[in-house]
């Protein structure tokens, strides 16, 4: 598909839907349809609204329309030795940048390099009245007006249709090395802290239940120093790249068997990864701050335990019993603020109703 600006057509569809009170189901590459709560509505397709609008490598900024495939963006960046530092997961070749930002998911590098929301500089948004608006911009620092751009990251399209996004992009590391360490999962946090405090350029950390894998990314001397000084076994580069891609894109063996619900817990640093949350199989990332868990335990129990630990848990894969949402419920005050914000952007409630929470 060629680059095309379809913003006016999309705005017209939204205005018509707002007038008739028709719900819209926003669809990009349709690779994350499983994520969030079920929603119904007339499809609003963004995949044709595509193309990189501006890319200035030395300004560290890239602007692309929502339907631009993630792969196209990453290829353009790679040509200039740059990358999306938050390593967004891709669940299919049609994964679009609009969906990446609407879902707000980040990959293995997230605790060390920043998240999807951290990299958003601005966006063009279609609100529920069909108005095209621009927030933020293409510069690194911008405090003019409320940060509507970052508010829409992870909102799953419930506040508006992302038409265009401007992202901070960063140089890809000169070189990376991955090492395997024979360490228990309980060591994830302590070990990662000791590396970071020693100035090791840690860029990903995984524990698969058997071993700990650490990736270091930086200049040639820094990586050479790490592989010489540390005791782990260096993994050959092709195998290492495949490992991180499989964790990032959920093609790792852990994610293959989805007969049991797969939960994603976001936990404070230093949580007790062996004991916390009842479940069968676990995969630990982000120095212990992201836990993937296969568990049949009741949602209420998992949520209470995650909250007591200072974190939260999301039902990522697995059929969702009708009575419960996939996301951890909010307190009464924030529920009210969420509903008022929804009203502020989408007064007719037409965008992806219920996908994030009931009533949004």
């Amino acid at each position: 598909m060629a680059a095309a600006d379809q913003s006016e057509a999309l705005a017209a569809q939204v205005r018509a839907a707002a007038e008739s009170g028709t719900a819209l189901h926003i669809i990009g590459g349709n690779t994350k349809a499983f994520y969030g709560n079920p929603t119904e509505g007339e499809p609003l397709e963004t995949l044709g609204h595509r193309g990189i609008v501006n890319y200035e490598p030395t300004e560290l900024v890239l602007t692309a329309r929502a339907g631009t495939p993630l792969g196209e963006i990453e290829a353009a960046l790679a040509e200039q030795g740059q990358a999306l530092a938050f390593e967004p997961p891709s669940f299919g070749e049609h994964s679009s940048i609009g969906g990446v930002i609407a879902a707000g998911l980040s990959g293995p590098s997230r605790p060390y390099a920043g998240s999807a929301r951290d990299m958003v500089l601005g966006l063009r948004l279609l609100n529920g009245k069909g108005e095209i608006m621009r927030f933020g911009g293409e510069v690194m620092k911008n405090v003019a007006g409320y940060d509507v751009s970052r508010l829409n990251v992870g909102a799953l399209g419930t506040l508006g249709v992302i038409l265009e996004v401007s992202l901070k992009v960063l140089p890809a590391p000169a070189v990376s090395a991955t090492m395997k360490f024979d360490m228990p999962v309980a060591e994830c946090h302590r070990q990662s802290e000791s590396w970071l405090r020693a100035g090791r350029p840690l860029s990903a950390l995984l524990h698969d239940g058997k071993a700990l894998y650490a990736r270091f990314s930086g200049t040639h001397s820094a990586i050479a120093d790490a592989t010489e000084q540390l005791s782990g076994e260096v993994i050959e580069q092709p195998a290492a790249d495949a490992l991180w891609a499989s964790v990032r894109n959920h093609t790792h063996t852990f994610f293959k068997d989805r007969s049991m619900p797969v939960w994603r817990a976001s936990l404070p640093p230093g949580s007790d990864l062996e004991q916390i949350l009842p479940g069968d199989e676990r995969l630990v990332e982000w120095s212990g701050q992201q836990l993937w868990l296969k568990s049949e335990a009741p949602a209420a129990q998992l949520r209470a335990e995650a909250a007591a630990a200072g974190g939260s848990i999301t039902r990522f894969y697995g059929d969702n019993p009708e009575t419960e949402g996939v996301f951890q419920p909010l307190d009464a005050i924030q529920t009210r603020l969420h509903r008022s914000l929804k009203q502020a952007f989408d007064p007719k409630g037409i965008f992806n109703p219920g996908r994030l929470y009931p009533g949004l």
Partner: protein
Amino acid sequence: MPAHALFREEDIRFDVDVDPLIAALREVLPEEGLIVHEEGRRAYECDGLSAYKQLPLLVAVPETIEQVQQVLKLCHEAGVPVVTRGSGTSLSGGSLPHPQGLLLAMGKFNRIREIDAEKRIAKVEPGVRNLAITEAASAYGLYYAPDPSSQIACSIGGNVGENAGGVHCLKYGLTVHNVLAVEMITIEGERTTIGSEALDTPGYDLLALLHGSEGMLGVIVEVTVKLLPHPLTKQVLMASFADVESGGHAVASIIARGIIPGGLEMMDGAAIQAAEDFVQAGYDTDAAAILICELDGSEAEVADQMQAVKECMTDHGATRIQVAADDEEKARFWAGRKAAFPAVGRISPDYYCMDGTIPRKQLAYVLRRISELSEAQGLETVNVFHAGDGNLHPLILFDGNQPGQLDAAETLGSQILQLCVEVGGTVTGEHGVGVEKINEMCVQFASAEIEQFHAVKNAFDPAGLLNPGKAIPTLNRCAEFGRLHVHNGELPHPELERL
């Protein structure tokens, strides 16, 4: 007083019966915690933008979160505006009092509640000074990264309200990238935790929305910040250039080489001279521009990067390159830049600090235009520039005692901000809109966007009591300001009469 009216009719629409309010506040605040007398209130009449002054109706100085909740509940019930103030260092009048409102001074919230070295976080009250966090954390080998130039005085609550930056933002981010959670009190007086010690929280990113919201959505009573380990080593390099453009190209080439320096600052000839006269930092006063580049990380990493940065500087015609030999020299290289504002204060009776951000490639053009615009107003401008992230601080020199000079400075300031928008930038990179740049918001945003901002505000504070008249202009103000955002050649705000 400034050339334009601080508050418009719609900003001062409140009808406050002060005596019953005083009686009710006395019930919930400690004896010293309510300031009614004029001389006491006078101490709060302005913030860091001291050309703008306004006496508040009352000042409350609460000591506990419960007191903050009760004060807000009372103001909400009585329909009284509330302006929250931390250290009062805002450069945009963000905490300028409201004539009909209560000034909520958070200065007593000055305790660091907890430093958890294992988790690398600090929980602090909002009145804690930015630098105090780093000072307390340094015993654990840690620091708090954002370092606005007022860090010795500015408070962390204000940093969140303004999404404060500093000289290390390109690599380490703004306040929004370094805060994990806040405790917020709504205008109704309810308390809720936004964010968490974990990296992600469910729902909308309210934490990002609060950053830079200039006290208009809620009152922050606790902040949880991320701490970073001290870099193992730092190197500072200073390079001179015969023209600003070459310096700009050197910056672009450093980034093209894949290097993100910890700090990358540029000063123009006038700023170099002023700083050198003030602190004798050994700056090259023959240069048209100097670049100060700080690299941090492990020894191996910094050595690799230093080599590459030197090559970039040389390739782009640096006339002189100095690498700091020791800590003393590093401090000296930085001293001139850090003292740039007071240095300018010595050479001019008054100065007005602007805060636009521009795409870096536009630097040479923008500086040339600033120089032309300055000349047309009969004023001089000195420029310091966060070169890595494109954040430009032109300092307009004027003498407030000379008739017409303040007006000329304000006109020039407004022209500079509009220039920043024209080249694809923004009217404020890190100082906030406040009252200062509220008119220029009309240049940057179209009416649908401004209305959307008001709708966001309305979602948190339907009665519009939190910091009225700041940050987001009313459409009437924009119509009156007259210099409106023009998009695709269409005149915006078509629904409004032209006055």
